[in-house]
């Protein structure tokens, strides 16, 4: 039996299984189905039972991480790997023999590549920069000199830089470059000076290679 005979069956299995599990459980689609499909396909490829299990587990972990980004991407990945393994497989007999060196090498490559990919996925989504006003006033007395404090925290596991800009009623009043170490939090003071009575708006922008943040504060200055 060649690949062409099995393509519809495998695609149906992947699609129906993923669809059914997605609607019956919150957790199972990310754990059970990828493991089962990949184990099935690995067994077909006859690299030995234990080693099939290892490589399937490794690929399933990667697939479940991909599902966090896109279920479709994960399904395509499972289907693609399943098809390749199935295409090169020979029988459905469980194989308990000792794996050959080539088979060990192939599985080792699968595990290492999966490991690298998982690491890359985790690192990519593992941080963020946070910015907020610290105890901001909503009203000020006319003639009172106001200082607004903004906290910026780097929750990435590595150093991050940002350009901080502050605008009062649309006029730039501060531009500052900051570099924050891993998990470092810093407070920046923005001096507004004495404000005229009425409504004012303070806008603070933070921009860096990680993205951008914007804060707005409405201030009422009473006479």
């Amino acid at each position, binding site marked *: 039996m060649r690949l062409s005979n099995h393509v519809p069956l495998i695609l149906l299995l992947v699609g129906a299984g993923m*669809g059914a599990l*997605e*609607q*019956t*459980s*919150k*957790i*199972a689609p*990310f754990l059970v189905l990828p493991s089962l499909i990949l184990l099935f396909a690995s067994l077909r490829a006859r690299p030995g039972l234990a080693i099939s299990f290892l490589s399937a587990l490794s690929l399933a972990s990667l697939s479940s991480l991909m599902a*966090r*980004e*896109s*279920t*479709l991407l994960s399904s395509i990945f499972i289907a693609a790997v399943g098809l390749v393994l199935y295409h090169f497989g020979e029988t459905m007999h469980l194989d308990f023999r000792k794996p050959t060196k080539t088979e060990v090498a192939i599985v080792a490559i699968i595990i290492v590549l999966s490991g690298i990919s998982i690491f890359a996925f985790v690192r990519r*989504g593992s941080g*963020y*920069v*946070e*910015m*907020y*006003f*610290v*105890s*901001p006033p909503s009203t000020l007395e006319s003639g009172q000199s106001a200082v607004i404090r903004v906290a910026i925290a780097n*929750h990435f596991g590595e150093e991050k830089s940002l350009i901080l800009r502050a605008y009062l009623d649309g006029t730039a009043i501060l531009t500052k470059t900051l570099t924050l170490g891993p998990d470092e939090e810093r407070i920046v003071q923005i001096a507004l000076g004495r404000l005229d009575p009425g409504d004012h708006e303070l806008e603070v922008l933070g921009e860096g290679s990680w*993205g*951008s*943040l*914007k*804060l*707005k*504060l*409405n201030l009422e200055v009473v006479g």
Partner: protein
Amino acid sequence: MRLFVHTGEVFKAHKVGRFHPEVPERLDYIMSSSPHAGFTVEEPKKGDIDLLLLVHDPWHVETVRTTVLKGLTRLDIDTDVSRESFDVALWAAGTAVDAALRSRPGEIRLALVRPPGHHASRTESRGFCIFNNIAIAVEALRERGMSKIAIFDFDAHHGDGTQSVFYDRRDVLYVSVHQDPATLYPGTGFPDEVGTGEGEGYTINMPLPPGSGDEGLLTMTGVAKRIIEMFSPDALGFSMGFDGHHRDPLTELNYSIMGFYRVGSIFSDLCSRIPCFGTLEGGYDPFGLGKGFWNFAFGLAGRDAPYTEGGTTGPEKIEAYLNWVKSSVGKYWPLWAR
């Protein structure tokens, strides 16, 4: 507006498996992220079985009680329990009811409880939920004489349990914005599920495609608010789910915490006129849940966002989803009439 948060350590006693996402620490994610000021913490309140019976069948309540006490660890494939879970579920229902009954116009009361509730139907516990906290709170308000109550559910998963409880009722409007059920648990919540009998037109489902971002959330929330205003409820309850955040491990909606802030802001003026309360549903990422909750709460209270991150945008097909909703809901709620 004043903001009250009803919560306590008691909710951590409901234990789940080691690798389960609905962990006791979820409440720590929120409370450790709390802004320094601007809200009041209220003690939780324990409910009793009579409260559960406002919504759930007696045999179901008894089955859950005995199952949990026997030390069995699971009510369905997703719903882990421990020996304390039944007791904690009583606290969750009681606290949700307490928040609802004490809510007043211009005063927001949000119940941070677990286990969550919106997947629990009259006869089933599922999807991490044991009893349906928001439905119980709504029934308690009805008992106190309120004639019309609306629920807005913005958890990424459709609240199939809540929908089923009120599916044939016209006194409770259930509006849900969630990820397309063709792509996510529980597989219900399509726009053509509009209610039945007297309740036809009083269930509104607004699915969003994966990757929708804040743009999708806010588009649907804007429509939801207009429908809720047309319904003119005596009170509004929120099923608060923060699992639509882009860092959440279970869904793909790609919201930011600014999206949650804007959802709160959209309803702020309504909450200055009628009592508003909320119960916690999903949200499994520490950042998305912790900061997302406070942004929503402060938005609802009409204040500045305590936390920020870049907003997210969605795919063009949001328009197609909006048209899908329009084709099912338009005949009941003439939002699009010229």
